[in-house]
């Protein structure tokens, strides 16, 4: 099966500053790619480039089966203004962009899809609540329901678990695994390495001007994490302390 997106010799940066260079990677259907790196290494810039909001300094982004009309996207929670007057149900419905008319209301099929998406995200009981009444975890679930409604082959998640509790994180990870089983590709920016090791198939490690792509086992090694400035040697030795007994998994 051809990759959804194929990246060749990608250079990203601003002005004279190169964040990383020479990235080559293919993102296959059914894969979960974790984008990991220190602050300022280019993780969010990479996501914005895939969305088309930023141009690469060099290199190519190819879409072998055509660029999807929509890319599922979840922004960082801190970027969302929760005072915007919208109910959970309406936020989810905005994911069904092509058939959504806020003045005409939703047809029965879309209403059913919205309910199913809210149920999958575990927030159906809050469907008629305005966003400003939600907790951080509930808001993240509501935003996930919008991504579910997008029904996109490629899904980008920018720090999806940064402001949620462990229970919510586990639930949202199960949603991501459902997407994987449906053959969608998921690219997510993460800081929590345990989530990466347990749930992702591939990793893209950014830092110190380099980009390393491969399977999680090949990329997230102590040597690479230290060399690319993601953690210190003492942190790495603590993190991988059980590796001789079978590693973190």
């Amino acid at each position, binding site marked *: 099966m051809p990759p959804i997106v194929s990246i060749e010799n990608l250079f990203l940066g601003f002005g004279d500053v190169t964040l990383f260079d020479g990235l080559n990677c293919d993102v296959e259907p059914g894969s979960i790619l974790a984008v990991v790196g220190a602050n300022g290494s280019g993780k969010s810039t990479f996501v914005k480039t895939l969305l088309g*909001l930023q141009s690469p300094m060099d290199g190519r982004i190819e879409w072998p089966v055509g660029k999807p009309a929509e890319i599922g996207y979840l922004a960082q929670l801190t970027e969302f203004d929760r005072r915007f*007057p919208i109910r959970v149900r309406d936020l989810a419905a905005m994911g069904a962009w092509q058939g959504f008319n806020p003045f005409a209301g939703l047809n029965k099929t879309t209403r059913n899809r919205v309910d199913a998406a809210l149920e999958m995200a575990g927030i159906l009981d809050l469907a008629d609540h305005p966003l400003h009444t939600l907790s951080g975890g509930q808001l993240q679930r509501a935003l996930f329901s919008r991504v579910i409604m997008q029904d996109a082959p490629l899904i980008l998640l920018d720090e999806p678990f940064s402001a949620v509790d462990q229970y919510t994180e586990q639930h949202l990870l199960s949603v991501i695994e459902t997407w994987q089983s449906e053959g969608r590709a998921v690219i997510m920016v993460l800081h929590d390495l345990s989530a990466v090791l347990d749930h992702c198939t591939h990793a893209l490690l950014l830092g110190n001007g380099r980009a390393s792509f491969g399977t999680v086992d090949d990329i997230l090694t102590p040597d690479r994490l230290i060399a690319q400035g993601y953690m210190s040697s003492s942190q790495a030795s603590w993190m991988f302390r059980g590796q001789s007994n079978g590693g973190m998994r």
Partner: protein
Amino acid sequence: MFAEFMIRAFLSGLGVAILTGVLGCFVIWRRMVYFGDALSHAAILGVVGAIALHVSAYFGVIALALILSVLLFTLTSRIQGADVILGVFAQTGLALGLIGASIWGRGLSIEAILFGDILAVGWHDIIFIWIGVAVILGIILWRWSNWITATLGDDLAASVGVNAKHESFYLAALLAIVVGLALKIVGALLITALLIIPAATARRFTSTPETMAVLSVGFGSAASAIGLWAAYVFDWPAGPSMVATAAVFFGISQWRSAV
């Protein structure tokens, strides 16, 4: 019951309340209050320019506001410290407008430009405003979903194929036209008040963007009508009375939500 000039004032006030009510929601959601302020202050220069060039004041104000919105939009999206750029434009526009008025605007009422003169509107003004209402409402309905998506975030808009920068520019251009249409009614210093106060009042009572827009129009229309009535009965200035009435609604809404 009322003199004809009051009926004209009411109709023009209603038209402006509809436009500012809906667009004011976007001004609040997208934090464009200072943008509207900069446009309205600088619009004085448009009035003076229109007098100097012997063209309609509406044309002068709308043309200048459109040019400024392009300039402001380009500069504020590229330069850090957008509030500084907007502040410079607002105050410079006001200063140049007043200088221009002293050169070309003999007999021009500065007070009318700053605070409006709704009681002086003619039927041709009303026709012009209501044609504006019809056209602008049509554009707003057409772009509504795109603008709501762009308001939620540039990245989110890009993910569904909406160019947030383009949509923001269309919105800024429409705001410029509304400033031009409303200048004669409430004046350069009070247009921003009609853009933000009814919408901010409506936000207290709504859970969807559509109901906020409808309620904002309702509060703006009521403030316009009651303000005009108060101006008629108590011999107060009309534009400030409308704004003061809107502020009373806002105060009540804050009190209601606090108890």
